[in-house]
C-alpha cells in the first residue's frame, strides 16, 4: 500500500500548475519533434536540456520526460504520412503505416498509433510503478564492485544486442569513456588529457557537447545529405465520424497491443536495446502470432499498433534502470541522467529514499504525460499534417541556432561550441560508415561513474580483479556481461559452421 500512498503524493506534485503546464507543453513540443523527419526524442532532449535550467529540477525532468514521451507518439506521424520514420524508434511503424496511408486510411493509422501508444505507455507505467521500488531496495546493497559490474553489463548489451559491427561498437564505447576522462583526474587531482594545452579542456568535456554535436549538428547534416529534397506527403481526410469508426476498429486489436506493451517494456529495460529493437521485435512477434500474417506489410492495423505500443512502453522501461540503478536504458535516458547530475540529483537507489518526492512526482507525471499525449495527438493531427509541409530549409537553420545556444548555455564557453561543431562533423562522417554513436553518448555519461567505481574496487581489494566475480551480486552480473560480450563471437562461429555444412552438401 506504500506504493499507492507514494503515488498519490506524486500526483500532488505532478498536478502543481507549473508541472502540469510543463507536461502539456513538453508533450506538444515532443510530438512535433518526433514528427519531424530526422529528429527523435534523443535529439529533442539533447537540444532542449540546456533550456530547463530555468525551472526547479523536478519540473525540468518532468518537462524532458514529457518531450521524450511526446516524441514517441510523434514518430509515428511522419512514418505514416511521409513514409520516412520520424525517429529510428518508428521504423517498424512505416511497414504497415505507409501502406495504410497509400490506401487513403492515413487517419486510421494515425489513430491506431495514438491509441496503441497510450496503451503501451499506460501498461508500462503500471509495471514501472510496481517494479521500481523493489529494484531500488535490492540496489541499496550495491557497492563499487556491483556498480562497475552493472556498467560493464550496460556496455556489454550494446556489443551483444546492439547488432552493429562489433569493432565499431567497442570503439564507440571506448572513445566516449576516454572523452569523459578529459579534465581532472578526480582521485589524484591532476589534470589529464588536456589536448594541446588548451585551457578549455581543463573543465572536461560536458556530455551535452557530445550529445548536441552528435544528435543535433551531426544528425542534421546526415538528414540533409540522405533525404535529398522533400519527401512526398500522403493526402488524408479528417472528420469526426471517420475518427469514431476508426477508433472502434482499432480497439478490437488488443493482441498486438499487449504483445507490444509487454515486450517493449522488458526490452526497454535492457541498456542499449531500447525502443527501436523493441518495436521491431514487437512487429515480428505480432506478425508471427497473427491469424493473417500475410496482410502484414500491406496495411494491417496490427502492424501499426504493435510497434507503437512497444516504443512507448520501452521509453518508460528505459527509465526503470536509470532511476533505480543509475544506468540509462537508452540514449535519451542517458542524457536525462546527465541532466539530473547537473541538477545535483544522484540517480540510483538512494534517490528513492532521499529524493522520494522527485521520483514519485516524475512517475505520476508520466501517467499525466501519457494521458495528455493521446488527447493532444488526436486533436492536433490536422496541425501536424500542416507543419510537416514546412520545408526542411526553415527547420534546419532554427535547429542549428538552437544547437549553438544550447551548446553554449551549460558552460558559457565558446570552446565547447567549437568542440560541439567538431563532434558534429565527426559524427556525420562516422555515421556514414555505420559507426554506432549512441554507445559513445552513453559512455560519456557513465564514464565518471564507472571509473571511480573500478578504481575504488581495486583499491579496496588491493588490485585483485576477482572481486567482480566473487561478490554475490557483482559475480552473476559480471558473468552475464561476459556472456553478452562473447555472444557475437558465438554467432559468427555458428554462421561459419552452417556455411561449412552447406558447402559440404
Amino acid at each position, binding site marked *: 500500500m506504500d506504493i499507492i500512498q507514494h503515488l498519490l503524493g506524486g500526483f500532488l506534485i505532478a498536478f502543481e500548475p507549473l508541472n502540469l503546464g510543463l507536461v502539456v507543453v513538453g508533450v506538444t513540443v515532443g510530438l512535433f519533434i518526433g514528427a519531424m523527419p530526422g529528429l527523435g526524442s534523443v535529439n529533442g532532449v539533447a537540444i532542449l536540456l540546456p533550456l530547463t535550467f530555468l525551472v526547479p529540477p523536478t519540473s525540468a525532468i518532468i518537462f524532458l520526460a514529457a518531450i521524450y514521451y511526446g516524441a514517441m507518439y510523434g514518430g509515428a506521424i511522419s512514418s505514416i504520412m511521409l513514409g520516412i520514420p520520424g525517429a529510428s524508434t518508428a521504423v517498424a511503424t512505416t511497414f504497415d503505416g505507409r501502406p495504410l496511408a497509400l490506401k487513403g486510411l492515413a487517419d486510421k493509422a494515425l489513430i491506431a498509433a495514438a491509441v496503441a501508444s497510450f496503451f503501451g505507455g499506460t501498461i508500462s507505467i503500471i509495471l514501472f510503478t510496481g517494479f521500481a521500488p523493489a529494484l531500488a531496495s535490492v540496489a541499496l546493497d550495491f557497492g563499487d564492485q556491483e556498480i562497475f559490474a552493472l556498467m560493464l553489463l550496460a556496455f556489454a548489451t550494446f556489443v551483444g544486442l546492439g547488432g552493429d559491427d562489433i569493432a565499431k561498437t567497442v570503439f564507440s564505447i571506448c572513445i566516449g569513456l576516454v572523452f569523459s576522462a578529459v579534465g581532472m583526474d578526480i582521485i589524484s587531482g591532476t589534470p589529464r588529457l588536456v589536448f594541446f594545452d588548451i585551457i578549455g579542456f581543463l573543465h572536461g568535456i560536458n556530455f551535452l557537447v557530445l550529445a548536441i554535436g552528435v544528435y543535433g549538428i551531426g544528425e542534421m547534416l546526415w538528414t540533409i545529405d540522405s533525404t535529398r529534397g522533400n519527401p512526398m506527403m500522403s493526402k488524408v481526410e479528417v472528420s469526426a465520424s471517420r475518427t469514431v469508426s476508426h477508433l472502434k476498429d482499432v480497439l478490437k486489436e488488443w493482441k498486438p497491443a499487449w504483445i507490444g506493451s509487454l515486450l517493449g517494456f522488458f526490452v526497454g529495460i535492457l541498456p542499449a536495446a531500447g525502443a527501436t529493437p523493441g518495436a521491431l521485435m514487437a512487429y515480428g512477434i505480432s506478425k508471427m502470432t497473427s491469424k493473417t500474417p500475410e496482410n502484414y506489410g500491406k496495411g494491417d492495423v496490427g502492424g501499426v499498433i504493435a510497434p507503437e505500443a512497444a516504443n512507448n512502453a520501452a521509453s518508460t522501461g528505459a527509465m526503470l534502470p536509470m532511476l533505480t540503478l543509475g544506468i540509462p536504458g537508452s540514449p535519451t535516458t542517458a542524457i536525462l541522467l546527465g541532466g539530473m547530475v547537473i541538477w545535483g540529483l544522484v540517480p540510483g537507489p538512494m534517490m528513492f529514499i532521499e529524493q522520494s518526492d522527485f521520483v514519485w512526482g516524475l512517475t505520476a507525471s508520466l501517467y499525466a504525460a501519457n494521458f495528455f499525449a493521446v488527447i493532444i495527438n488526436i486533436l492536433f493531427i490536422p496541425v501536424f499534417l500542416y507543419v510537416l509541409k514546412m520545408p526542411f530549409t526553415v527547420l534546419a537553420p532554427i535547429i542549428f541556432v538552437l544547437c*549553438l545556444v544550447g551548446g553554449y548555455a551549460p558552460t558559457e564557453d565558446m570552446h565547447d561550441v567549437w568542440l560541439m561543431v567538431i563532434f558534429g562533423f565527426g559524427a556525420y562522417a562516422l555515421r556514414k560508415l555505420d559507426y554506432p554513436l549512441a554507445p559513445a553518448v552513453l559512455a560519456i555519461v557513465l564514464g565518471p561513474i564507472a571509473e571511480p567505481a573500478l578504481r575504488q574496487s581495486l583499491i579496496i581489494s588491493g588490485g585483485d580483479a576477482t572481486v567482480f566475480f566473487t561478490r554475490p551480486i557483482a559475480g552473476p552480473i559480471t558473468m552475464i556481461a561476459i556472456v553478452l560480450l562473447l555472444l557475437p563471437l558465438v554467432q559468427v562461429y555458428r554462421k561459419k559452421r552452417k556455411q561449412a555444412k552447406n558447402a559440404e552438401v
Partner: protein
Amino acid sequence: MRRAELVTAVLLAAFSIYLMWKSAELNIGWVKHEGPGGGAWPFWLAAIMLICNIWTIVNWVRRATPQSRSQDQFMDAHAIRMLLLVGGSVVALVAMVHVIGVYGAVPIFMLFYLRVLGRHGWVPTLVISGTAPVVIFFFFDVAMRIVLPKGYLEPLFYPLYDIFL
C-alpha cells in the same frame, strides 16, 4: 566508401595512439596504496580503441563488412555541396559569434540559410531571421540570466540591460 572506410580506420588508429601517448603523461601503472594511476583508465581504453581500429582494418582487408565491399562514393557531388554550404555556414555562424556576437551572427546565418539555401521569399526570410534573436534574447539573457556573447555589439545592449536585467 571502401577507401573512406580504410582512411577513417587509419586516422582513428592514429588518434588512439595519440590518446595513449597523452594518457601516459600520468601514471598508467599501479601506484602502491593508491590503486591504478590517473592515466591508467584512459590509457587502456585508448589501447582497446586501437585494437578495434586494427580489427576494422583487418575486416577491410578481408572485405568482411558492407562498407569494405561498397563501391558507392563516400561523398558524391550532392553530399560535398551540402557539406560545404550547410557545414560551412554553421562554421561561419560560430566564427561570427566571436566578432559580432550571437545577436549579430544568428540573423545573418538565418538570412543566408533561408534566402540562399532555402530560396524562400523575402517576407518569411525576414520575419524568421528577425524573430529568432528576439526570442533568444528574452529566453537566455532575460529569463535564464545566461548572458550570451555579444562581441563588438556589446555597447548596443547597454540600454536593454538597463531595462530588462
